[in-house]
């Protein structure tokens, strides 16, 4: 087992600085592109087509990009526009789309425990997100228990245990290969007895087109409901910001099987823009709770529509 404290990268910059730095880098290309396009141009059909293309390169998808550019054209077609105007107009439009989904994850303190199930495809960042969430809940003074529900992947249990150590939080685990649903049931049983505030359940990564694995997830939910009909109180789907249009299929399938209540977008600190979230907001209207912006325990940010939209367009 590696030493839990040694690997934590140095964090000296303020979180806001890091977030904007990350988002700025990720949107640099998009922003440069817009600059190239409109500083000296009239907003004609060609310019609009190019702007649409640029939005597509941010993973907004063809339909959303078309909608945004046609909105822009409504008010500004044929006019000479500055780069800043275009950016601001897009950012405002995107922020408006995102505003209804930018909602914090509310913890209902009447539930003891408030059960959170974390789901997603392989490698999306579920376990790391749980680590960060735990830190936040602990800082807020909640009694938290973690459940190592990824009983499939090699060393997934150990990975969560390290996060447990880092955040000084107990981890309920069984050997690799154990039944995840049974583990969740027993963990919930014990957490109820202890009257824990929050029970955070990790699950194995699964591709949404694998029926047997999705059935397994359905079973976890079913078994939790046997113990507490209102649980899980939150089902978080973790989405990787690098994902493209497949995100639609992920949301659809996980919502169908596990009743997703909200999204967490991870790896926003890279070059990927996570623009698909805009299209997801239009289509599903699921709340987006958090952004993951690094590997450190503090690298979790609330999702805010304006900042995300501005970040996407490189405005600060």
């Amino acid at each position, binding site marked *: 087992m590696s030493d839990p404290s040694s690997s934590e990268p140095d964090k000296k910059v303020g979180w806001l600085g890091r977030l904007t730095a990350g988002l700025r880098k990720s949107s640099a290309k998009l922003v440069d592109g817009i600059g190239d396009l409109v500083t000296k141009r009239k907003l004609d059909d060609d310019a609009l087509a190019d702007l649409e293309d640029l939005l*597509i390169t941010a993973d907004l998808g063809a339909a959303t990009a078309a909608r945004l550019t046609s909105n822009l054209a409504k008010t500004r077609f044929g006019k000479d526009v500055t780069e800043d105007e275009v950016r601001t107009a897009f950012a405002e439009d995107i922020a408006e789309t995102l505003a209804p989904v930018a909602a914090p994850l509310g913890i209902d303190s009447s539930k003891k425990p408030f059960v959170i199930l974390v789901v997603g495809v392989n490698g999306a960042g579920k376990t790391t997100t749980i680590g960060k969430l735990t830190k936040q809940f602990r800082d807020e003074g909640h009694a938290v228990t973690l459940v190592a529900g990824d009983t499939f992947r090699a060393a997934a249990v150990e990975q969560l245990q390290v996060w447990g150590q880092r955040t000084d939080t107990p981890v309920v685990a069984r050997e690799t290969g154990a039944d995840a649903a049974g583990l969740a049931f027993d963990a919930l049983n014990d957490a109820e007895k202890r009257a824990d505030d929050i029970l955070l359940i990790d699950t194995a990564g699964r591709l949404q087109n694998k029926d047997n694995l999705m059935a397994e997830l359905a079973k976890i939910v079913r078994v939790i409901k046997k113990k507490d009909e209102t649980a899980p109180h939150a089902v978080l789907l973790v989405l990787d910001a690098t994902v493209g249009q497949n995100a639609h299929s992920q949301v659809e399938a996980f919502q169908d099987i596990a009743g997703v209540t909200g999204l967490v977008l991870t790896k926003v600190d890279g*070059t990927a823009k996570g623009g698909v979230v805009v299209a997801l907001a239009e289509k599903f209207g699921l709340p987006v709770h958090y952004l993951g912006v690094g590997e450190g325990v503090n690298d979790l940010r609330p999702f805010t529509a304006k900042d995300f939209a501005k970040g996407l367009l490189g405005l600060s």
Partner: protein
Amino acid sequence: MFDGLSQRLGSVFDALTKRGALKEDDVRAAMREVRVALLEADVALPVVKDFVEKATEKAVGEQVIRSVTPGQMVIKIVHDCMVEMLAGEEESAADLNLHAAPPVPFLMVGLQGSGKTTTTAKIARYLQTKEKKRVLMASLDVYRPAAMEQLAALGQQADVISLPIVNGQKPVDIAKRAMDEGRKGGFDVVILDTAGRTTIDDVLMEEVAQVRNAVSPVETLLVADAMTGQDAVATATAFQEKVGITGIALTRVDGDARGGAALSMRAVTGVPIKVMGVGEKTDAMEAFHAERIAGRILGMGDVVSLVEKAAETVDEEEAERLAKRMMEGQFDLNDLLSQLRQLQKMGDMKGLLGMLPGMGKMAKQIKQADVDPQMIKRQEAMLLSMTPKERRQPALIKASRKKRIASGSGMAVQDVNRLLKQHQQMATVMKQMKKKGLAGMFSGGGMPGAGLGGGLPGGMPQGLPFRGR
């Protein structure tokens, strides 16, 4: 939301029945649809533009072969163009390069969560079992909790030796230690698994460059998720520039992503895609197959995947018998029963139909109709409530027999009617199939290399041979 290219082009070309050479205007109209289809499949925009340009050039003036529609002709050209782009010129480029004095160092790089550790174990296992090489794996991931333990555990599962973990060592030192151990222990290949990193993290990019300088890897593989969106270009370019890659390992090809990232990365880096990950187990790896990925990106279905998935689960003899009967245009209720059972084994019907060319629409309809998987079980129950004779001669089933079958299976007479009607429709399709042949059924002869040859569930290739040297 994803329509296959064939459906998209259908609307463009429905009105067009003229024969002769493809005209530029028509091709351009078609290419607009191709462009959107590619973007929806996550092919990166600059690559889409290049591709469309190239394909247009090829298509304009091309004679439309008799027996296909202009739309099918364009699809064929687009498909061929994409296969060419994905496959590259040298056939052998996709082989893992072992041409160096042992121990041959391999370096695995990529973003967080792209599947590096699992892919490391898969390649190690492949080299060890198929190429008879002694392989040592080492994890240089000192950041993610339990990353090293993960590789060690996978090593145990796959029966591959992994370098003992020494806490507190820097990645470069672990790499050197692994190479030393590789020399001393007489290993043929040493695979170095690195931590996931974002390409704008200059410190970590510098770190992996140092590792590269220390071991001079013969293969540096970028491990990339098939679900990646437009970012594929930025990521691949950055790893290419800052580390230098020799190949791409495409992971999660068993998912339902269209996989446009494959084309993007192949195009911008110029390096071949060497392997594909198709499952979570350590033996779930295959050689890259350009035709399959091309078909998927274009929404023409992934016939080979379907056939292979079928091969894994389907009772081969039964499937062959069924295929033979289908070819003969025969299809009674016994065949339906056996097909339902095969389907049950294969799992997701929606996913399965989506893999078939020309069946995307049907998959969509099924989705809209919201077919209950329980439905298959109920249909099975009805079929089992019939006598063998009834199953052989469905025409026998009249009112009182229907009543008996319904009560025997706990269903209503309408349900029995529906089942019989469904069978009737399928039987008709089988008859048509006999007349036209499978290829004719699905694509009007326009689709090259779909390899349906011996009939759908029959004659299944037992996995593609993995090339290596």
